[in-house]
């Protein structure tokens, strides 16, 4: 089963006992899942349970070499979608993608890796 | 202080830096 990883995250992030929910505060940091993919087509969803005003999240896909004490999409090893303004990030560069998302929204992430 | 570094701020103790949401970004949109 795929969970949020206890041992592949910034230590200050709070992981729930179910390992399906994570809570962060202050600066951006990253948690990855227990499993990754390297070929084929895969999909996952995330629900934003709580996101107080002025807070934000960046969700997406991350390679193993991405730094955990930074947001997903900071370097070349990650691709993320930001809640604020719906910007997508890769290598610390943002591009307009959609309108922003908020508390209560369910976000879907599909990756297609041809052989 | 202003002669050495114009925008320097003297502190009595360490302050924790409050990161901005865009802290790690080279460009926004």
């Amino acid at each position: 089963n795929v969970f949020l990883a206890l041992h592949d995250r910034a230590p200050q992030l709070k992981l729930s006992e179910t390992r399906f929910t994570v809570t962060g505060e202050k600066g951006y940091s990253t948690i990855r899942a227990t499993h990754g993919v390297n070929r084929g087509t895969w999909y996952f969803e995330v629900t934003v349970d709580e996101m107080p005003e002025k807070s934000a999240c960046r969700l997406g896909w991350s390679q193993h070499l991405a730094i955990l004490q930074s947001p997903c999409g900071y370097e070349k090893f990650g691709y993320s979608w930001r809640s604020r303004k719906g910007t997508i990030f890769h290598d610390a560069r943002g591009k307009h993608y959609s309108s922003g998302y908020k508390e209560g929204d369910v976000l879907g992430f599909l990756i297609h890796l041809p052989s | 202080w202003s002669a050495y570094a114009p925008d320097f701020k003297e502190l009595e103790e360490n302050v924790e830096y409050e990161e901005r949401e865009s802290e790690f970004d080279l460009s926004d949109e």
Partner: protein
Amino acid sequence: DLFKFNQLKTRRKRLRFDKSSIHCWGLFADEPIQAEEMIIEYIGEAIRSSIADFREKKYAREGIGSSYLFRLDSEMVVDATKKGNFARFINHSCNPNCYAKVVTVESSKKIVIYSKRNIDIGEEITYDYKFPYDDDKIKCHCGSAQCRGFLN
């Protein structure tokens, strides 16, 4: 350490900011200091290591040559570039009269400069920066007999 640190806050060592033969400005003892005394805390902004890496490159781009980034532990760095205290002016020496130590005071980590030996009035306060090795060399002007030539 807690007792000594609290004493440091209430009874500060008298230090003088003055021209230095090592590098521009430095801190000098304005009273005799005995060995193993806490002299001053290195104060600045506590930032994450990832932010420090970012800032180091940014400062280099801005032409800020000197580094006022001081590693607290594997996760945190104290940055005295734009916010801090006098301790940022303490120069490096390959044969210093002080050393820096990270102490924990009420579960908070602090960087404190201690004297290695007795220091006379008028002596410049110095410690070994212990910069990591780098191909991009920073020349040392401490002038001591044990001078290694470079800070890194």
